[in-house]
């Protein structure tokens, strides 16, 4: 085990996979000379050269489309999209290219590419640089979507994503990069895509979250514990494919559920969680699933406004109490 920051864990995953497999290459805006605006690719251009680590023009739409076909042609591209807010620019390549050809040309091509991006609010980056648009990408068949919260999962899932034969959208969070945690040593420590993790066991209510919202859920669980409420916190880690088995097992025990997502409420990822629970766990539920997500509005800049609207531990705890009331 080595203690490292989330950004460092990602960096070491990239380095190891590039060392291991010469077909892995990276491209994206400012990822090369500068090492990425969040420093995730620091030192990689120096190590692997300008052919395999490329600074690009500001052209998200073509970049993503190029990643798709580069992946069909013998390489394993890792594309960085600087902010998740720019995901709309990548969607044609995901929805009309990767998703379509993965199925239509099944057996002829694989599409092993990773699109890394980061979203989330909390530091005044404003309405165009703080969103979580998880449900846009999670809606697309044939695309996997992961969103780790710990450095260990960040490393293990990124390595798994790079080795995966399908496109994987890898969602990071700007407030996680400096978080530290123990990361297992060894080049082949992968984390399986599609497996949730019980972060804290509990018996009264299940809280399901991904990415930074897992930290908020853990905080909520600690607050609830003070009132004698035992919350189980599940880090889904993967948004698609969803580990519905883990969800069912937890709800079978607690009979109450809170679903959390930093994206907008309406048609957001939390809606899918609620609907999936409706599909699979209705008879186990003693109360409606509570959704905790972003109010349906643009994210304001000013601190009191932004802070008030983001989902957080207090809102999660309140939702859990409501579910149990």
């Amino acid at each position: 085990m080595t203690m490292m920051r989330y950004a460092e864990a990602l960096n070491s995953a990239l380095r190891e996979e590039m060392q291991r497999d010469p077909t892995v290459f990276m491209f994206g805006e400012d990822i090369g000379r500068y090492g990425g605006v969040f420093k995730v690719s620091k030192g990689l251009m120096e190590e692997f050269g300008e052919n395999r680590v490329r600074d690009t023009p500001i052209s998200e739409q073509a970049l993503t489309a190029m990643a798709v076909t580069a992946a069909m042609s013998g390489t394993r591209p890792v594309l960085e999209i600087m902010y998740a807010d720019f995901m709309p620019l990548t969607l044609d390549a995901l929805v009309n290219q990767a998703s379509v050809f993965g199925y239509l040309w099944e057996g002829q091509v694989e599409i092993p590419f990773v699109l890394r991006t980061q979203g989330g609010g909390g530091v005044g980056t404003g309405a165009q640089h703080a969103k979580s648009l998880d449900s846009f990408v999670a809606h697309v068949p044939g695309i996997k979507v992961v969103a780790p919260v710990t450095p260990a999962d960040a490393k293990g899932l990124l390595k798994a994503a790079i080795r995966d034969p399908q496109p994987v959208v890898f969602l990071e969070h700007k407030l996680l990069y400096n978080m530290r945690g123990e990361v297992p040593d060894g080049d082949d420590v992968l984390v399986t895509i599609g497996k949730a993790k019980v972060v804290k066991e509990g018996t009264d209510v299940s809280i399901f979250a991904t990415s930074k919202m897992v930290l908020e859920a853990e905080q909520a669980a600690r607050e609830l514990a003070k009132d004698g409420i035992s919350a189980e916190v599940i880090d889904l880690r993967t948004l698609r494919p969803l580990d519905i088995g883990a969800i069912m097992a937890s709800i079978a025990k607690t009979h109450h559920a809170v679903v959390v997502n930093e994206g907008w409420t309406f048609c957001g990822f939390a809606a899918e969680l609620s609907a999936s629970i409706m599909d699979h766990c209705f008879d186990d539920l003693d109360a409606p699933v509570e959704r905790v997500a972003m109010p349906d509005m643009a994210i304001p800049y000013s601190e009191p406004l932004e802070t008030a609207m983001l989902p957080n531990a207090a809102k999660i705890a309140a939702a859990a109490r409501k579910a149990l009331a």
Partner: protein
Amino acid sequence: MKNTPSVEEQKEILRRMVLTRRLEEMLGDLAKQAKTRGPLHRCDGQEAVGVAACAVLNDDDYVCTSHRGHHVYIGKGMDPRRIVAEIMGRETGYCRGRGGHMLLGDIATGMLGGNAIVGAGIPAATGMALSFQVLKQDRVAMAVFGDGAAQTGICHESMNMAGLWKLPVIFLLENNQYGLTVRQEVQSPVKDLHIRAEGYGMPGVMVDGNDAVAVYRAAAEAAERARRGYGPTLIEAKTYRMEGFSTSDVGGYQPEEEIAQWRERDPIRIAAAALDELIGADEVARIEAAANIEMGAAFEQALADPLPVFETHAPSSAYSEISR
């Protein structure tokens, strides 16, 4: 640098052009009998562009085309029977009926592939060329796209990156002078689109798209440049679609006189005339007749092939998901 097609190559180009024309005609007939499904975009009149340009490529060079790609399918050496089968939605088609006429793909011949999002073939080929460059392979990618597609944002982004990184890609702009129904002057303030190449640091050339030899030469030169590491080329091939936008098209926007003028310059007649001089009219006629027969047989076989059944086409490996 060799950039003139040999006699053998010219014969093969003519053969493939005739195959393509016959494909279009037979599809047109079936469409009139309501035996096809969805819109079909015929490329009658544009055969020289797709066929002659693909003739300069190897099997492991990739080509991406548009919704109007039949000449590229045939040009890249795909099997007529499996093309027809795909267009007719059969299990024996290149995509087992999943793709249809616009979305064929065949990794074996490097036709990868059709694309019905206008402009999407441009970054597609650029991405392939990027992969070739990263792997330091001696391979070229080519995008075949229309004058309408040239106005999309991804065209700009792709050409800029291709010029910047000197990617081994050929941009073959098939200027048939119409978008869907609108004339080119309704889509762009400039008549000659290859002039834009300068802004991307690459050569822009114009060729007569109805002259297979001219197309071959330009494509051969571009492929050579790409292989030598000099980067991309934009080739604008002026041509014309003689049968309108698609089979679901009510027509009326291409003036009759204009169509008639272009029929005079039918690319198959031009290619045949050039060959007449080299191998004699009889041999040319034999090539054409054989191609027509071959395509007829392809239809016969393909139409006898089975339709797919849903059970064997449910999402599987390409969409494998653990828990659902």
